[in-house]
């Protein structure tokens, strides 16, 4: 296994910048996910690491050596594709054998590796079948097997679970993670599904418009988003992002827009607002940080239920606050929700985020 280093990587398609000055390091044995909406550059980046497309500028190192000029086959990487890309006219065994044949590995060693991979993945009984006789999950395992037999320096995976149905996807997520830990593999994983990214990775690299937005552990990107995009992208339902103006009144800082106003009590927040260069901010608060209180409560923001979604344990409540729609949730089984009900809401100040409306960067206290 090896580490992968991207340094100032750019990729142009004619005049369009698909990847913009991307630098990051994947440590040995680490599971890193590149995540973001379609067109953010994550698949392009993966293809550049694999060597399937050229870089416009920058450097990529695998295991310490610069691989920019090397063909995919010389980079010691294995790849798993969204559509599995199994050779349709070959049996499973022949599919697993192919990369080893190309490298002129001895028959004895070939068989040994194939059997080992088949055992790990539980596909030993499928070795003589053809891909079209297999289910989606089985095909995915064969694709993984083809990568495992190579014993490569790193695994590159391009949305491998996207073609599976929901239940299977959840199951395979756990399997993949377990496999990675067992093999102590270095994995670079690409997906548009933030939940996959959060549940499987050691670190998450969030991309948008070709640029790296934030690179950190799942906990970090969830609790300490670096900008409004990350805040809104990670977590489902999304974090509420509300544009507000910063007003100073009687020495206190207050946030308000045409729907409501809110004066933070905690000294920490007041200090953050004090050092904010801009008067236009974005208030970020997750649905879990909005306590729902009866309409008779003295202090708080008035709200009305627009609609609600009971999911069993948790009920998502969509609230109308003036012109604003805010999503909150409750896990209180006694909570009675009806459309049109009036409530009072508050924001948990320990879990509040503030972003500069222009730069979209998170505000921190100096």
């Amino acid at each position: 296994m090896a580490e992968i280093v991207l340094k100032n990587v750019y990729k142009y398609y004619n005049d369009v910048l698909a990847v913009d000055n991307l630098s990051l390091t994947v440590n040995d044995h680490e599971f890193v996910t590149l995540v973001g909406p379609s067109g953010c550059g994550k698949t392009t980046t993966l293809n550049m690491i694999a060597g399937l497309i050229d870089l416009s500028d920058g450097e990529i190192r695998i295991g310490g050596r610069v691989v920019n000029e090397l063909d995919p086959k010389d980079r010691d990487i294995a790849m798993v594709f969204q559509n599995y890309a199994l050779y349709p006219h070959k049996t499973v065994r022949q599919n697993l054998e192919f990369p080893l044949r190309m490298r002129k590995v001895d028959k004895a060693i070939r068989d040994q590796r194939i059997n080992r991979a088949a055992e790990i993945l539980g596909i030993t009984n499928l070795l003589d079948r053809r891909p079209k006789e297999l289910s989606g999950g089985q095909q995915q395992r064969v694709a993984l097997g083809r990568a495992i037999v190579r014993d490569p320096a790193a695994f590159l995976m391009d949305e491998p679970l996207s073609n599976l149905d929901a239940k299977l996807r959840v199951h395979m997520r756990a399997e993949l993670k377990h496999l990675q830990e067992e093999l102590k593999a270095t994995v670079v994983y690409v997906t548009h599904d933030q939940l996959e990214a959060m549940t499987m990775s050691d670190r998450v690299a969030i991309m948008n418009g070709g640029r790296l937005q934030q690179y950190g552990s799942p906990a970090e990107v969830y609790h300490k988003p670096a900008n409004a995009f990350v805040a809104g992208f990670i977590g489902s339902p999304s974090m509420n992002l509300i544009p507000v103006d910063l007003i100073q009144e009687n020495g206190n800082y207050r946030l308000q827009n045409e729907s409501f106003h809110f004066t933070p009590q905690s000294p920490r927040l007041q200090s953050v607002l004090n050092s904010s260069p801009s008067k236009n901010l974005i208030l970020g608060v997750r649905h879990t940080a909005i306590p729902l209180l009866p309409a008779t409560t003295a202090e708080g923001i008035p709200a009305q239920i627009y609609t609600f979604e009971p999911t069993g344990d948790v009920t998502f409540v969509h609230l109308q606050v003036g012109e604003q729609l805010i999503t909150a949730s409750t896990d209180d089984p006694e909570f009675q929700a009806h459309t049109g009900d009036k409530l009072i809401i508050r924001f948990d100040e320990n879990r509040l985020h503030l972003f500069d409306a222009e730069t979209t960067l998170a505000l921190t206290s100096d």
Partner: protein
Amino acid sequence: MSQFAGVSRKQKNLINTIVIYFFILLISFFAACPLLWMLSTAIKPRDQLFRIPPQWIPNHPTLEHFERVLFPTRPNGKLFFRYFLNSTIVSVVSTILSVAVSVPAAYAFSRFNFPGKDVAYFGVLARNMFPLIVFLIPLFILMRILRLQDTYAGLIIAYLTFTLPLSIWLLKGFFDGIPKELERAARIDGCTRFGAFVRIILPLTAPGLAATAIYSFILAWNEFAYALTLTHSTSMRTLPVGLAYFFTENTADWPGLMATAFTISVPVVIMFLILQRYFVAALTQGAIKQ
């Protein structure tokens, strides 16, 4: 390490492109050279014709051959015009007829499920297996009996032998590509089955119809064997037949022959180059489905 360590990937890509280009040019020359040589001969003055070594681009190009064989005032020109007229009439009418008759049949094969459908469709496809010769002799006799030998009608009907099965096969392929939900939606909205066919589906197959018509037209325009056999008077000859007779009657007049041949090809080649897309779609549509 790769053995190409010394050559960058960008350089490899460039070399690749150059090699590919070289072979493409080579094959293109092979494809085009008869036409080019034909043109070259047609504009060469007589004395330059048998020069050794041969010249591709003549020093003093001339249009005298074109004038001699094609101008309406010259005897050859009159004949040529007549042949052109015959070819046009026969090709256009047989194309229109075959498309008109094929469209409902192809639609039926695509959408309906009636007893005997598979047998009938197999019959349509099977026509391909029969050597054209098998039809030629009886058609020759049939036309004589019907007093249709040496007429437009006879030739047009005979051409249906190959244009009809082809049109049905191609059009069925195009119809198969249109989702059945469209007709269902139309019928719920109040159309009859026939109405849905005419008002909704037909307009959508316009490209397919165009492609089929073009393909049939080209086949009819270039057809030789039937035209040769089923006509005998000079005034009924089509262009390919006219070309052949020109040669037998003027064996040494290669430039004249080339000029005529070149002129005959030009409309088809131009029409084809413009409509390439549809033409290729027509050819592959039916085959890929199989």
